């Protein structure tokens, strides 16, 4: 567990334990008695005997600091425990009521939540002050006030956890076995909510410490001479103005440290409870030496004449780890369609993004080149790259709906894209976008241009992306699972449309997919990717009829099992060969 923590987290943990120890034994180890006044030593500035000085009563500030966390932390911990004890069961009940079949019960739950809205609308601090004022100052009343103010937090948290947990199979199974729903909530679901609750507990304790100190600061909480941080700051407040800063400064720093440590502990607890949070992606190359020489040789080779795209010895890595892609090389001729197949996680999407130079966070090119029409894309400056991307190289990415910005109208995106690469007025761009939608068979273009992405179906969104991809008649399209997330009939329509239009405009295409059926039907050549390496490459017919690599055979077997979505593998791209 220790090894999973960063250095920062370890420091937090150490401070946390220190705070707990001081809270436990503080009053007994303070160098001076923390509550005995010494009029001769009033407001002594920090020196050897009193490293943090003394306060207006002549009490050593350090001693009071060591004794004080006991009060603050104890109040906060007890109050938070109390608010969990009240909030969590109510949360289970609220979650139970909300999911219930009977309408009246749902209303009760809804009503409870609106009631909580109102309770939380009240000024927390003043509410706590009033509660303390009603019952008089003193630690016990502060505990009740702080607990009352915080319990809605836990009620809401547990309720929302219940709502998501009750969807799980084991909850349904437990109910099916004849347990009452409420019982299941307490017995099976609540324990599963504890991790989330525990994170919140840590944060809330920090907040409760602040609230306790704030109450004491205005004299509505713990009152002197009990050592308490807020009261200490209050007693030092007037001396801040006159220059005796140490009286209030150190308690505040300690208070900040305590609150921060509890909040940070919440993060750490959350991190530790999330399983596999730091797991390194498992699939990795066994050794780089296996392919390195070949990759080097290929990287040095010049790109083929008149190839649209030449990839040479491309290696991509996530900083410091073994490469995700290694020694990938291929050429793509104008109008050619290259299928890139592989199991999920073989590096197809990374290859696509590497060609587009859109690797994003954490990934970088370690070796190799991507030449587009003889130009090394890696060497282009930002501006030239922007001019090529989206105009000459077009991406077509999976799950088109998530590729469209939910808050940007389809028309605005298309207009911006057209105008990014062509000088024209907004109106001209709009007209062109409408024509383009018409060209790919979308009727009522104006309606769809005014639509937001959430109004589009998956197929419609992918068609819009297709229109975007083709509007500048690019020589190269890079497609990554363009049919992912579409249902089977729509898949077929979109693919047919895409291939036909690419054919018309003479665009070359890299088509990454996991379905060999698609490759068999639409591609000229195929490259099989496995663990970041191209293990096999050749014409579709050769590769599919005489697979040499185990992964290829597996993919073929899988395709045969699911041959429903596309044509049989024997129909080798006869349709598309020019």
């Amino acid at each position: 567990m220790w090894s999973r923590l960063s250095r920062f987290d370890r420091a937090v943990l150490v401070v946390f334990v220190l705070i707990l120890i001081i809270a436990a034994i503080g009053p007994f180890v303070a160098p001076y008695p923390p509550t005995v006044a010494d009029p001769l030593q009033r407001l002594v500035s920090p020196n050897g005997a009193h490293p943090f000085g003394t306060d207006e009563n002549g009490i050593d500030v350090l001693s009071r600091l060591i004794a004080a966390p006991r009060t603050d932390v104890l109040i906060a911990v007890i109050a938070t425990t109390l608010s969990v004890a009240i909030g969590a069961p109510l949360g289970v009940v609220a979650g139970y009521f909300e999911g219930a079949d009977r309408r009246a019960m749902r209303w009760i739950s809804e009503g409870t939540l609106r009631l909580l809205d109102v309770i939380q609308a009240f000024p927390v601090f003043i509410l706590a002050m009033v509660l303390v004022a009603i019952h008089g100052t003193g630690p016990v009343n502060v505990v009740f006030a702080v607990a009352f103010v915080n319990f809605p937090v836990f009620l809401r948290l547990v309720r929302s956890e219940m709502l998501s947990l009750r969807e799980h199979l084991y909850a349904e199974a437990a109910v099916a076995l004849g347990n009452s729903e409420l019982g299941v909530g307490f017995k099976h679901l609540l324990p599963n909510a504890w991790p989330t609750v525990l994170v919140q507990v840590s944060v809330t304790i920090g907040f409760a410490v602040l609230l306790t100190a704030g109450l004491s600061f205005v004299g509505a909480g713990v009152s002197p001479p009990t050592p308490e941080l807020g009261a200490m700051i209050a007693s030092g407040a007037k001396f801040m103005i006159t220059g005796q800063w140490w009286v209030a400064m150190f308690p505040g720093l300690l208070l900040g440290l305590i609150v921060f440590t509890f909040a940070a502990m919440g993060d750490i607890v959350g991190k530790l409870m999330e399983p596999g949070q730091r797991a390194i992606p498992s699939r990795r190359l066994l050794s780089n030496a296996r392919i390195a020489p070949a990759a080097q040789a290929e990287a040095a080779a010049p790109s083929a004449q008149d190839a649209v795209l030449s990839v040479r010895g491309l290696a991509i890595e996530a900083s410091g780890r073994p490469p995700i892609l290694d020694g990938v090389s291929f050429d793509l001729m104008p109008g050619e369609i290259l299928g890139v197949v592989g199991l999920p996680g073989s590096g197809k999407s990374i290859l696509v993004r590497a060609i587009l130079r859109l690797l994003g966070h954490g990934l970088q090119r370690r070796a190799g080149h991507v030449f587009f029409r003889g130009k090394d894309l890696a060497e282009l400056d930002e501006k030239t790259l922007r001019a090529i991307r989206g105009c000459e190289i077009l991406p077509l990415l999976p799950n088109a709906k998530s590729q469209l910005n939910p808050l940007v109208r389809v028309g605005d995106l298309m207009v911006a894209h057209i105008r990014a690469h062509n000088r024209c007025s907004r109106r001209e761009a709009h007209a062109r976008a409408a024509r383009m939608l018409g060209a790919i068979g979308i009727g009522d273009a104006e309606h769809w241009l005014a639509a937001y992405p959430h109004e589009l179906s998956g197929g419609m969104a992918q068609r819009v992306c297709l229109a975007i991809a083709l509007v500048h008649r690019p020589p190269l399209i890079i497609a990554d699972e363009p049919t992912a997330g579409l249902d089977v009939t729509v898949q077929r329509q979109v693919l047919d449309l895409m291939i036909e239009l690419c054919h018309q405009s003479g665009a070359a295409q890299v088509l990454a997919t996991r379905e060999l059926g698609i490759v068999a039907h639409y591609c000229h050549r195929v490259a099989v990717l496995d663990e970041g390496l191209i293990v096999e490459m050749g014409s579709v017919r050769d590769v599919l009829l005489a697979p040499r690599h185990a992964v290829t055979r597996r993919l073929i077997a899988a395709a045969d099992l699911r041959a429903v979505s596309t044509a049989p593998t024997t129909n080798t791209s006869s349709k598309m060969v020019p």
Partner: protein
Amino acid sequence: MRTLKYIGRRLLVLVPQLFLISIVTFTLVRMLPGDPARLELGPLAPEEGVELLRHQLRLDEPLPQQYIAYLQRLLQGDFGRSWVNSSSVAQDLLVRAPATLELITAGMLIVLVIMVPIALLSASPSRGWLARATRRVSFGYGLLAGALPDFWLGLVLIFVFFSVLGWAPGPEGRLAILDLPPARVTGFYVVDALLAGNFDTFESALSHLALPAVTLAFVYGGPIFKMVRASMEAALRSDYTIYAEGLGLPRRTVLLWAMRNAAPPAVVVTGVVAGYLLGGAVLIETVFNLNGIGRYAVQSITTADYAPIQGFVLVAAVFTVMVNLIVDLLQFMIDPRVSARAS
């Protein structure tokens, strides 16, 4: 049309909420030990006066009637009287509200003008010096924000900028002792002084406002800062931003469109914080001796003056509910998905 319907529905929720608030404030005083009329008049008032008030407030009738009487008084703007100042609570609150609102507005302005841009910059993955510097700042701020108590931070600022450096005035309120407040137009001294063309007063009001506003922005801007940063980071890393980059859209457009997506959660958190502040910034007012409604409430609690507390709690709760309403409406306007779901 859809908008109107939504606003209508949202306002409909407001009505029971306001009723609930009035019930809570009503019971709040009933929960106190002792007689409400006695509480309102204070321990020094003669018994006949208490008796008279009890009759006036219809406290001798059963509880439901008492509540109705309370509602009627509220609707007439009668919040009771403070026995300490023997003044009308409604009047007191009205006089003091601008100080609190000015503080909240100034603090939120600092958050929006200085902290939000830093949060946006620090979210960008760029390797430029500006992005790197803002990332450092935001890391450090992330550690401090939320952990430092506002009342203590205010004191430290006073110590540094008043006692040591002498750059700012001490905690003497909204103006120096000898300054006269400007003619009241908005109640915000900074604005009123400018309107009156009185630049000395303007400077004085601004310098008195600076430290409390910075304290408020630093302590309560934390959640806003973190949310803006997190949602901008998420937006920049999302599929649609990568796609927009892949289409070669201008950098400006890509960033602006990412910001659109970062806006809704940021607006929500800003609303929650702003709604909390009227009742939450009371300690800042206390530390800086600003004569706002928060300090009024704190003073009233220490003198067991319950009519002002009841009034303050009511006003603060209504303020929060109103801010939530505005946030919901903004949300409705910014995000077409919300409007789709709502109708």
